[in-house]
């Protein structure tokens, strides 16, 4: 059962990933990515990381992808990528880079791990639940955890600074030629 689930989900994840990078329409890409995230969440369950599977769905598939879709909608749904290539050979070169690195990594993995199998019930490792993660988070990884709070403050301030207009102090009729265009938003 576990084995079949693995293969089904692996194929789903790869196809949806492929769909995401190939789709012309941004909304299709985003939806493909959501499918991908769900498939990966199933993997996490198979690997015993139940808490992360939940986080993956709630935060990634839920919050982050909604944010993406929201921005895509704001910018107009019908917007499709032009098919022409202003940078010559952009796609073949990208294919080469991705393919070469992927091939190299797969080679390293196959030669390093061969056919090593997970121990029976990989899922029942003691840390695979919320308790274990919680304990590690507030003991061994307390400091990194606190640093993420700084990170989130920075992100919040950053979004406010970038997004908000500040009429009183900002260059109205900008003196610099480079910044002469008036009006910042719709």
């Amino acid at each position: 059962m576990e084995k079949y689930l693995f293969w089904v989900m692996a194929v789903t994840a790869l196809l949806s990933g492929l769909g995401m990078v190939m789709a012309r329409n941004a909304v299709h890409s985003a939806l493909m990515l959501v499918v991908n995230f769900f498939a990966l969440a199933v993997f996490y369950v198979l690997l015993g990381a139940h808490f992360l599977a939940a986080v993956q769905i709630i935060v990634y598939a839920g919050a982050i992808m909604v944010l993406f879709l929201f921005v895509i909608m704001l910018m107009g749904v019908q917007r499709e990528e032009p098919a022409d290539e202003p940078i010559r050979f952009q796609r073949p070169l990208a294919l080469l880079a991705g393919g070469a690195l992927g091939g190299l990594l797969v080679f390293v993995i196959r030669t390093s791990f061969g056919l090593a199998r997970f121990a029976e019930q990989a899922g029942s490792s003691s840390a695979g639940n919320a308790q274990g993660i919680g304990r590690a988070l507030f003991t061994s990884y307390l400091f990194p955890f606190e640093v993420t709070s700084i990170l989130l403050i920075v992100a919040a301030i950053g979004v406010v600074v970038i997004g908000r207009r500040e009429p009183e102090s900002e260059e109205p009729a900008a003196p610099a030629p480079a910044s002469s265009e008036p009006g910042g938003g719709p």
Partner: protein
Amino acid sequence: MSLAWVLTLGALLFSLGIYGVLARRNAVLVLMGIELMLNAVNVNLIAFDAWIRQGNATGQIFALFIITVAAAEVGVGLAIVLLVFRRRETINVDEVNLLKW
């Protein structure tokens, strides 16, 4: 289920993400490619964590941090993308070419 297959999946997703980042021109899609890469890393971390099975769940904690950071990064990233879009009506990274790409 063998470790190597899970890691192979991670590597393939990672290279798909790299292709996405390098080949797409829409900045939002480039960001989505980066998300795919981060997810591939998470698959690796969680697989290694289940493989190593030591007490304090380092791999899973790391994956949790990556998800947090990804959320923050996407927030700032999309804000910048919107800023550029509102001014120039385009988010194709090669049309944003006041500075050479």
